[in-house]
């Protein structure tokens, strides 16, 4: 059991927290390194080895071809409004649901679209939002519109599907942050005569800022990676040709893995820029405990 010649090394390692138990983490670490970090690094290197041209040829091609570089704007044009709307709806609703004693039914209903996933939502919306679907039909019944709205195979179809899967995601995330705030803080503010808006603006918002920043980042990243619904519900050749479609086509239709990796790296870079921007913006707000008490 004990290696007689090197007990000191073993003891020194154990003192720093490395022993047999620590090694249990090793398989998982190696696995993630092999299937996540390595492919990413490999993709990054591959993107600098284009089929033809210099090391940067893929990136030059991406940023000089409007069919390619416009996918960034197209994707942002979907992801940013969806993130903003989801958050703007999630915060007031979460603040209200927090007061409910039986939240379970609502949260269970809202977890459905997240679980069912984008493919099923796209398939459902094709029927529901289609020209013969119940949505247009109901609006026509109430005389809001005269002709069925065109909501599928264009921007609005993808937008609707992103809201249906994105809003519950943002809401459940926000709810988990809102319920973490000690209600005593709000009571204290109310005792001192703060109105509903003042309580939100000066008590909740500063305490929620870190959570909202995380929710915004995750919702944005999810929406930015929109893929199946942009093909099934959108117009993948035009208005909803998002960046993931460009990457997919490069890899599996043109078999140009180098270009596909370059587009994937650009996708990751755009996501990172926005996430960093959101986190920097959040740093302008209060930081500290969300629990009550002194301090």
């Amino acid at each position: 059991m004990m290696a007689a010649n090197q007990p000191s090394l073993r003891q020194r390692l154990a003192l720093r927290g490395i022993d047999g138990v620590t090694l249990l983490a090793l398989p998982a670490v190696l696995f993630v390194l092999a299937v996540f970090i390595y492919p990413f690094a490999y993709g990054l290197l591959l993107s600098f080895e284009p089929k033809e041209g210099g090391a940067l040829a893929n990136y030059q091609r991406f940023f000089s071809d409007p069919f390619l570089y416009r996918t960034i704007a197209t994707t942002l044009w979907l992801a940013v409004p969806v993130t903003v709307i989801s958050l703007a709806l999630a915060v007031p609703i979460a603040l209200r649901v927090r007061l409910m004693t039986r939240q379970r039914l609502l949260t269970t209903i809202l977890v459905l679209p997240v679980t069912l996933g984008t493919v099923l939502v796209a398939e459902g919306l094709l029927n529901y939002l289609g020209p013969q679907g119940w949505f247009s039909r109901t609006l026509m019944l109430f005389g809001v519109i005269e002709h069925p709205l065109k909501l599928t195979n264009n921007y609005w179809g993808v937008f609707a599907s992103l809201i249906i899967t994105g809003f519950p995601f943002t809401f459940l995330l926000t709810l988990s942050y809102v319920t973490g705030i000690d209600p005593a803080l709000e009571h204290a503010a109310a005792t001192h005569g703060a109105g509903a808006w003042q309580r939100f603006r000066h008590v909740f918002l500063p305490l929620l800022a870190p959570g909202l920043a995380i929710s915004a980042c995750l919702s944005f990243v999810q929406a930015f990676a929109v893929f199946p619904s942009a093909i099934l519900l959108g117009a993948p050749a035009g208005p909803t040709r998002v960046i993931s479609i460009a990457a997919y086509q490069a890899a599996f239709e043109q078999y140009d893995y180098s270009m596909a990796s370059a587009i994937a790296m650009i996708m990751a870079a755009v996501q990172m820029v926005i996430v960093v921007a959101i986190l920097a913006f959040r740093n302008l707000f209060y930081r500290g405990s969300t629990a009550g008490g002194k301090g």
Partner: protein
Amino acid sequence: MIRDTTVGAKLWITAVWAVVIFFVLNLAAMIVAVILSSFGTRWLGTWLPAGFTDRWYFAAWSEFQLHDVLIVTFQIAFIVVGLSGLLGVTAAYALARRDFPGKKLVMLLFLLPLLVPPITFGIPLATVLYQAGVGGTFWGVVIANLVPTVPFVILVMIPFIEQIDPKIEAAARVFGANTFQLFIHVLLPMLVPGILAALLLVLVRTVGMFELTFLTAGPTSQTLVVALYYSVFASGVRAVQSIDAMAVIYMITTLVWLLVALRFVNPTQIVARAKQAPAQQ
């Protein structure tokens, strides 16, 4: 409890609930429309289908080879569940019990695959898997699906393990149990609820995981959600109703596991996966 009794506050509360009801109604109508359509004979330009039948289920079952697809789906899902449980729980135990140099880095390593969307890392991953010769095979799909599920199990399990008193383990050690015996006879029985919850969520996520499976699956390693995608993509070739029947079958396979999972976890836990993140800075 603070009561807002002004007219403005009441209007605001009404507006908030109106938005919730509008959203839930649309969601319900979308799902009901799929179910109705799958049982409908002919549905053109009316509120309801002309008549009802169950023949689309038989049609979908044979047209889309659902028998084979379902078997592959569950084989993949259960292998992913088993492997991510094995890798995830052991790693979570080490991370919950030991503090070692570079632990923050390791935590970040496990957080990244959950934060980066599957389609972003899926394309380089698929490239590597195809070059290694496992792309398009059953095991390629399993490996790709394990990338987010192993870290997921780790992050869910760490708080579960942390709340178990280390004295219990110390007592087992005193009586001469080795690490393996400790795991099987002491920790595992106490961790069952946590492991069950984490693994059920992995199951739900794997059955519903489209992007990674789509990028790595070949013709014989498609899961149900990928088969559904292809049938919607090629709609026009098949009757809409039989695609809807397939969608209903997919919904059932996902929702059964979701309902079982919800007995053990709170719905917010399904999305709040980054909560155990080192509360940055």
